[in-house]
């Protein structure tokens, strides 16, 4: 799992690369919680290089969403591959998260 964070005007873009499962999600969680300590107004997570995500990944993003809401910030998920988008749909979380096609759309 590769995680890179880039500050942008009004927030932070985090790019994840690799599969998210029980093995890798704790590291994703820790890193995102660390970034949220800086209270970015907007956290944009680019998932276009994530070919697999299980419920431990979704649980991680639910936790981030709750944290972001407490901080009155925003979380946007970007570039979900079709199979992963389906998992969000199965979980009935597709409307709960702000899901955008591109980083540009998420910054708008």
């Amino acid at each position, binding site marked *: 799992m590769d995680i890179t964070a880039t500050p942008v005007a009004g927030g932070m873009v985090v790019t994840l690369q690799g599969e998210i499962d029980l093995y890798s999600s704790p590291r994703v969680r820790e890193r995102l919680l660390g970034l949220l300590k800086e209270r970015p107004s907007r956290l944009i997570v680019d998932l276009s290089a994530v070919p697999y995500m299980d419920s431990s990944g979704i649980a991680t993003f639910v936790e981030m969403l709750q944290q972001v809401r407490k901080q009155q910030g925003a979380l946007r998920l970007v570039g979900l591959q079709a*199979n992963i988008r389906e998992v969000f749909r199965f979980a009935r979380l597709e409307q709960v998260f702000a899901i955008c096609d591109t980083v540009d759309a998420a910054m708008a």
Partner: protein
Amino acid sequence: MGPSSLTVIFPAEARWLAAIRALVEQSCLLTGFAEEVTYRVKLAVDEACTNIIRHSYSSRSGTITLDVEVGNGAMTFTLRDRGKPFSPEGQSDLPRELKPGGLGMPLIQQVMDEVEYSRTPGGENLLRMVKRLGRN
């Protein structure tokens, strides 16, 4: 070709999950599942293993046995562990409020055509999941 099965025995450790998924994926493609179905099946088996690691063994050491059976237009996955007993009643609905967790069992139910938990006389938990060809 007729039915055939493979057995994999691995430590209840998250680091092995990627290897198990890869094995399941190739078995699905061998059976003739489409790629989207293969993804779902991989997810369901992964979620079941994740639950054994986290809940049955409570992240302590233990062994998981997975049988993968192909043929006859279906795949059957049987997971065995020696962790604590578990009854799945009431775990197959999605959580009502937003919370981090509670999705694994509903996902398994949504993907698989049959899901069956039992406790063997020998003190093993047994989870049997069937996915048939030609279904989503």
